[in-house]
């Protein structure tokens, strides 16, 4: 078994001379959820289409599930499942018919397709609407049906393009839990295109941040934070805003970079979290009671927006794309 479900190098694609993806190099491990993050037009969907052999790159190579997506696209697509951003259901058919038709196009026989489709619709809470035409379905119901369709053939690799866009909070939670269970219980590999950072944070072990078709960061949030920042932050709760004297005392501790007051104490930027005991000692020496000391880990949002800021500083982002939403 390959150590990577997906590996691509220098993937480049233009549409009518306009670059959509520029030299993308990433990999996805078996059983991993990789989040492709970025604003609209960053190249996330293009990446997904390229890696499933729907689009052919201008440059670059890729191996997906051990196959060449362009020379062996049909074979690859037998083993992948896709949830497109728009559910892509035919409104003239019922939910069950949409699934059975797709199953037949995947080569399943009709009776097996009906059984499998029925099971999946039940699992996604759509069993009661199986024989209803999709025309009257809400966005959430369509997403559920489309997700069921993507899982019909029990794919090894799932491409999910904005799986929770347009969903209400309860439906979002359900879909996120379902994706998590697919990887945790069934070991499926997922490439998740999203601009919802909360969703990515809950599901993805690594993330690739794209802007204007270029990869600007790739790794776990911790790795990226370590690459982005040489310091960390410690939150001190002393029951009220830190006095000037205390801030001076904290700033004097090596290797503190900066100490700023907060409503309940101070936020101290330090070169290493190992300095925490020294900070507590400085507080005690200043006659201040310490209620709590919390090293503040960099969040996915911190990482994403820092990457975005640096990308913009490099002049590669024109700022027109919609920003990801922290949820």
């Amino acid at each position: 078994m390959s150590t990577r479900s997906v590996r691509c190098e220098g993937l480049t694609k233009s549409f009518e001379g306009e670059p959509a993806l520029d030299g993308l190099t990433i990999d996805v491990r078996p059983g991993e959820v990789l989040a492709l993050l970025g604003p609209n037009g960053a190249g996330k969907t293009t990446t997904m289409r390229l890696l499933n052999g729907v689009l052919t790159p201008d440059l670059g190579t890729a191996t997906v599930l051990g196959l060449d997506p362009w020379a062996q696209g049909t074979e690859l697509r037998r083993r992948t499942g896709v949830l497109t951003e728009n559910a892509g259901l035919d409104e003239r058919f019922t939910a069950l018919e949409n699934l059975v038709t797709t199953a037949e196009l995947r080569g399943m026989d009709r009776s097996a397709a009906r059984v499998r489709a029925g099971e999946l619709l039940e699992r996604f809470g759509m069993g009661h609407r199986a024989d209803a035409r999709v025309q009257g379905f809400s966005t959430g119901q369509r997403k559920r049906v489309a997700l069921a369709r993507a899982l019909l053939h029990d794919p090894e690799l799932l491409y999910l393009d904005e799986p929770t866009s347009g969903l209400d909070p309860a439906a979002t939670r359900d879909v996120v839990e379902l994706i998590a269970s697919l990887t945790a219980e069934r070991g499926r590999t997922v490439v998740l295109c999203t601009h919802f950072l909360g969703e990515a944070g809950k599901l993805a072990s690594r993330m690739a941040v794209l802007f204007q078709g270029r990869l600007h960061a790739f790794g776990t949030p911790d790795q990226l934070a370590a690459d982005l920042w040489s310091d960390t932050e410690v939150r001190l709760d002393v029951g009220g805003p830190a006095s000037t004297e205390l801030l001076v005392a904290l700033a004097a501790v090596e290797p503190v970079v900066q100490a700023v007051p907060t409503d309940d104490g101070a936020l101290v930027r330090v070169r290493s979290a190992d300095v925490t005991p020294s900070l507590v000692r400085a507080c005690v020496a200043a006659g201040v009671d310490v209620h709590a000391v919390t090293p503040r880990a960099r969040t996915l949002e911190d990482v994403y927006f820092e990457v975005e800021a640096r990308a913009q500083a490099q002049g590669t982002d024109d700022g027109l794309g919609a920003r990801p939403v922290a949820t």
Partner: protein
Amino acid sequence: MSATVPRREGTDWRVVRAMLRRDLGAIVRSKALLLPMLFLPTVLLVLLPLSIGLAANGKTVRVERALELLPERLVAPVLSHPPDERLIILVLGYLVAPLFLIVPLMVSAVTASDTFAGEKERRTLETLLHLPIRDRDLYLSKLLGGFLPATIVSWVGFVLYAVLANIICWPVMGRIFLPTWKWTILIFWVAPAVAALGLGVMVRVSTRVDTTQEAQQLGGAVVLPLVMLAVGQTTGLLLTGPIVSIVAGAVVWAIAAFLNLRGAKAFTRDRMGSRL
């Protein structure tokens, strides 16, 4: 994985059949597709023989003056019949024939415009492109999805037309006068060729535009001159020998095959995916 089919080198007919079931099922459920497909054939193939038959039975219309205006060589087959039969022979036997070629063209145009452009409009094309269907199988199934309804409507329509015309005109004719050999060649050889010709144009147009309306407008502009050309020659085909009809059909088939083969070569997933 359950019940999947192993990869085959040739056309995957199982997938093509599944796609046809899907597309034909969708046509049956869509009033926007079904009504135009049935309206014209009903008018041409049911109402027209009814009205002509009734007029001939009542002996209210004489065609001798009209026949005098046409070249003698062409009207000879009509004039060889008794005067009471001439209206029926002229209209139902010859003049309706060109209209029969409009039926397969129109049906193929309606269904073909709904193929790729319709998939784009309904936002189902991307899902389709992500399925394990080879480009040529996808193209072939879309072609057949247009060709089969056009041919079936033409053939069923003709059978209906012939039955109705024979029944209504029985009091005047006293015999079964349709179908003739020339009609049979026209319906079973030339009409499918015309449908294939229309598809050759319309499917390619459908891959290039975003809506069925655009496809119909653009496709109509290309197909209409062909229709006029074909229709203009059809009565002549019936008035001449069957060999001419067979040759004419072969020419249309050749053009249709050329257009469709070129279309199949030009159709790639990447091209469709780039237009999503």
